């Protein structure tokens, strides 16, 4: 949005799982500060696309650049890319043997080699920011789903990423906890974070998304601003899917 610096540049991404082709040549660019929402039926490759960006899944074809750095090839520095991309999972994946504070301060300490004091001070600030200033000493097992997901977001933010990837961050939550997580995400949007979000939260899409990507069977079927996709999609497949979920 701002000066059109491309943060994520996906070129002809392919992922062949053997039995299924999860990505069949996906092209997508995400600019700095942009919020892209990815929707599509189950099995359409949304998670695979997101997980390819930090190479939790290795592409079988194509290339991805994160802020100019290649993901594949001899010049690829996967750890740098992982440091620069924060990921939030559907089922949180908090470390159950660490407190909320330790969950957040661990990676800065071990990966960025920041001192304990400094990384804990930062973790405390992040906990404040996600509204959990008083829960730093709690273990994940003592937190509600919504609280866990907010800690998970804070954990990802602690690495000061350039891009945040969210894979269905509210799908595992009880309905009354969805809002507290979406509110934290909306704050991030306001601060100008570049975000790719797999989600079917239409409210969030309308409030925050710059573009909506509709995927089906490993391909991007249609891309456009939320109003356009939701109200008058060009493709029949998109309209059919939206009728299902709206």
């Amino acid at each position: 949005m701002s000066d059109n610096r491309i943060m994520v540049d996906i070129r002809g991404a392919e992922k062949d799982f053997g039995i299924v082709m999860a990505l069949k040549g996906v092209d997508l660019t995400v600019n700095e500060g942009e919020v892209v929402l990815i929707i599509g039926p189950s099995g359409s490759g949304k998670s695979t696309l997101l997980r390819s960006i930090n190479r939790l899944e290795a592409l079988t074809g194509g290339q991805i650049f994160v802020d100019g750095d290649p993901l594949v090839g001899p010049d690829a520095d996967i750890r740098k890319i992982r440091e620069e991309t924060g990921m939030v999972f559907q089922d949180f994946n908090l470390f159950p043997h660490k407190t909320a504070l330790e969950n957040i301060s661990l990676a800065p300490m071990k990966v960025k080699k920041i001192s304990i004091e400094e990384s804990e001070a930062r973790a405390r600030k992040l906990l404040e920011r996600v509204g959990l200033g008083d829960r730093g000493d709690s273990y994940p097992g003592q937190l509600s789903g919504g609280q866990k997901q907010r800690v998970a977001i804070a954990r990802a933010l602690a690495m000061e990423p350039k891009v945040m990837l969210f894979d269905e961050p509210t799908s595992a939550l009880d309905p009354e906890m969805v809002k507290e997580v979406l509110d934290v995400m909306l704050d991030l949007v306001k601060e100008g974070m570049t975000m790719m979000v797999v989600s079917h939260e239409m409210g969030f899409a309308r409030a925050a998304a710059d573009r909506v990507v509709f995927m089906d069977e490993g391909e991007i079927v249609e891309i456009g601003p939320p109003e356009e996709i939701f109200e008058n999609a060009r493709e029949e497949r998109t309209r059919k899917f939206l009728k299902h979920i709206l």
Partner: protein
Amino acid sequence: MASLEQQRGPRIEVTDGALLPTRGDGYIIDSWRLTIAFAILALITLIFIAKDPYDQIFRVVIKGAPLTFGVTAGAILGSIVLGLFTGLGQIARGRALNLVAGVYVELIRGIPLLVQLIFIYFALGKFFRLDGFPAAVIALSICYGAYMGEIFRAGIQAIPRGQMEAALALGMTRRQAMRLIILPQTMKIILPAIGNEFIAMLKDSSLVSVIALRDILRRGREHVSRTFLSLETYAVVALVYLVFTLVLSKLVAMMEDRMNKNER
């Protein structure tokens, strides 16, 4: 986590992805207390009330305790290290490592410990002079390392995939993720199983008496050959092992409780 019924051994409860061993507690009389009370009372009765020949037997037999403990402690350390590397080797991404670790496990599990012990002692002895003590520790470590390897492998694989993925996504190396995230959680869930191996090692350390190591059992056998008091002697030997084993199992249980208290 209060338990409803008394149960032997650890129970496994699932709380969002983490396995928590919990122990039925809260009764004044439990099977452990009953058994150790019996064992200690029986020993005291024999040694201090019946006295002859039991006090003499006890004094002879207990001299073997340091050796029994030494062999057991050495084997515990050795087998944990071997088991950890075996478990990691089995799940590593190199095929050669998988094979080496896998063959080691298959091989060792197919040969009786007694045979291994005698073989290692005499086979190694052909090439370089190995004292009984290191031979015993090595043999027990190699044997139990294979079983521990299986426990480590299963424990590591029981940790949800998302844990490794979250750690990698934060920029950790595989090695960091293993050390900081996966193994600490693994240790917690395998402690009851490892604890059982510790106890088995303490008991199986009695096999080292066949390679001329003067542990508790060996001292007992020597005493029998001098005095022909077989029933009396082996009764004391059995009671001494029983007390040690019960104490060790309590120590393991206390470790488990401590680990669980550190969380939640």
